[in-house]
């Protein structure tokens, strides 16, 4: 991590959901930093608590969920203890979000222009014509031609990829310092995915913003992110610089995720997968949460929960028996 204070520092974040069938510890002691201008990839299987981290940062955890503890420091300001009024200023202005499904993240009844204008009306002092100009410029910068005309169009008049461009434009409008992208390319065609990723990269580089990229797709995150944090059952199991983590992961779970990416040059073997599925998060037993699916698990893994420890290169992993560089699980 860089020397100066990071833009966002999450420390020991715990977000729990109190349901009738028990407490769901969706996020249970997660810490990470996002430096200025950095892209941080948040990776894990579904149900791993990735999106809950995103919504916790925005203060949008609805009942029965609650942030039970920890700190979320945005440039030195703690968002966990900030009031709702302050959070409303922060949302959209300091932190904005790009959603998974561009088919539902735009209101079908309002024109694109009106939905863009809404953000600027809320977060800037510009007059109507200045706002209009800003919207046109923003749409153009995300690669939408005839932008002035398109402001009057409704979401259904755009294709999926175009809509995601609009969503990105809306997210960038108020020039936020942090963008949380929650599976931004999952709902898109593969051919569109890399365009959208490039666009997001260019946008944040251009505006000097930081980004948290939430995804289950290691291929996407390895293209985009500077750092990667791997979540499993609400805990950080491994983190480090993207290249180190992809090329020589220390945690068997990360190894499993990487091995389950199809490799077109090797068509002989069956695609490898991680055996089993994510355990019931309502009653996690003590010890390592991954042990039942882990090929390296031993007796100690049933008893002692591993701490996040420095490994080779830039990696930190929570494992009693971490992999050495190049070692297969």
């Amino acid at each position, binding site marked *: 991590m860089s020397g100066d204070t990071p833009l966002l520092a999450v420390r020991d974040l715990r977000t729990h959901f109190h349901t009738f069938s028990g407490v769901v510890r969706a996020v249970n002691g997660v810490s990470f930093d996002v430096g200025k201008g950095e892209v941080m990839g948040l990776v894990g299987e579904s149900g791993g608590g990735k999106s809950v981290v995103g919504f916790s940062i925005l203060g949008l955890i609805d009942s029965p969920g609650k942030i039970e503890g920890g700190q979320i420091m945005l440039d030195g300001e703690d968002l966990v203890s900030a009031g709702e009024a302050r959070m409303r200023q922060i949302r959209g202005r300091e932190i904005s979000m790009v959603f998974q499904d561009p088919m539902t993240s735009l209101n079908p009844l309002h024109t694109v222009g009106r939905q863009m204008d809404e953000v600027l009306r809320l977060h800037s002092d510009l007059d109507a014509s200045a706002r209009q100009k800003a919207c046109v410029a923003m749409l153009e910068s995300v690669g939408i031609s005839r932008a002035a005309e398109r402001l009057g169009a409704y979401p259904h008049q755009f294709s999926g990829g175009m809509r995601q461009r609009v969503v990105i434009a*809306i997210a960038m409008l108020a020039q936020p310092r942090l963008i949380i992208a929650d599976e931004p390319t999952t709902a898109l065609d593969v051919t569109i995915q890399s365009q959208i990723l490039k666009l997001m990269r260019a946008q944040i580089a251009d505006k000097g913003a930081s980004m948290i990229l939430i995804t289950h797709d290691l291929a996407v995150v390895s293209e985009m992110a500077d750092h990667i944090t791997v979540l499993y059952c609400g805990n950080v199991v491994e983190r480090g610089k993207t290249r180190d983590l992809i090329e020589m992961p220390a945690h068997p779970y990360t190894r499993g995720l990487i091995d389950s990416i199809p490799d077109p040059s090797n068509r002989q073997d069956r695609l490898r997968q991680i055996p089993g599925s994510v355990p019931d998060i309502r009653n996690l037993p003590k010890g390592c949460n991954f042990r039942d699916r882990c090929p390296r698990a031993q007796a100690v893994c049933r008893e002692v929960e591993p701490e996040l420890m420095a490994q080779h290169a830039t990696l930190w992993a929570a494992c009693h028996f971490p992999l050495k560089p190049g070692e297969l699980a």
Partner: protein
Amino acid sequence: MTTFLQSELFHNYRRSSSAIIGSGLMALFAFAVLAGPFLVAQDPYDIAALNLMDSYKPPVWLEGGDPRFILGTDGQGRDVWASVLYGARISVFIGLVAMMASCLIGTALGLIAGFYGGILDTVIMRIADVQLSFPSILIALFLMSAVGTGVDKVLIALTAVGWVVYARTVRGSTLSEIEKEYVQAAKVAGLPNRKIIRKHVLPNVLTPLIVIATIQVGTFVLIEASLSFLGVGVPITQPSLGLLIKNGFDVLFSGLWWTSVFPGFAIMMLVFGINLFGDFLRDELNPRLK
């Protein structure tokens, strides 16, 4: 306007005979209600214009009919045709106003219940559940006997009965709307809740209400008629169609049928027209039937 004429809705409307008949009947009543006073020579509520010598004249095509009174007269010599036109005004007025009030209150409560959830949701919806377990005419009767008669009291009773369907429908649609990402996106953009409700949720839950509102006008006309027939509805000085039926009912079996039958026929046509058109709208606006 041209876009409306090219729309699917208008296209289907022109091919649906029930929609045309229904809206035709509604248009007829709209005209009768608006132009009624100009269509008849006699003001049926102006005592001075009545002549007891004209009482119980049969319709004009029967023996003893008077060409001045096409549909005959009642016991006070009041023109039945004029009474029906004036009565329809009151019936339609009550139906429309009570519908609007119900819609306003029910939609607001449904939005609140669906959006905020929790204790508000529980309270509002349990009241609605309890209310739905009683026949609406019973609740209306109970309220009318508690607050007394009068047009305003009828409106209150009908609104108290009618808000429930809107609240339930709107709450259901709201719950599914707020799960959609554009509502999340609006929250993420920092929009305050009431703006999210007004600008993003409300417009997206309105469509099913159009159908409910249309059919409810018919239902309200019927409930009001029942209340008036039972003597707890509108006062005798402002007789609605229902009260006209009641007034004529006393002499119905003496062969003086016209004083009851014509107001009854008017109610039937009005509700029939509304329901036909409402059915058409339901078929058109229900995405599941497409």
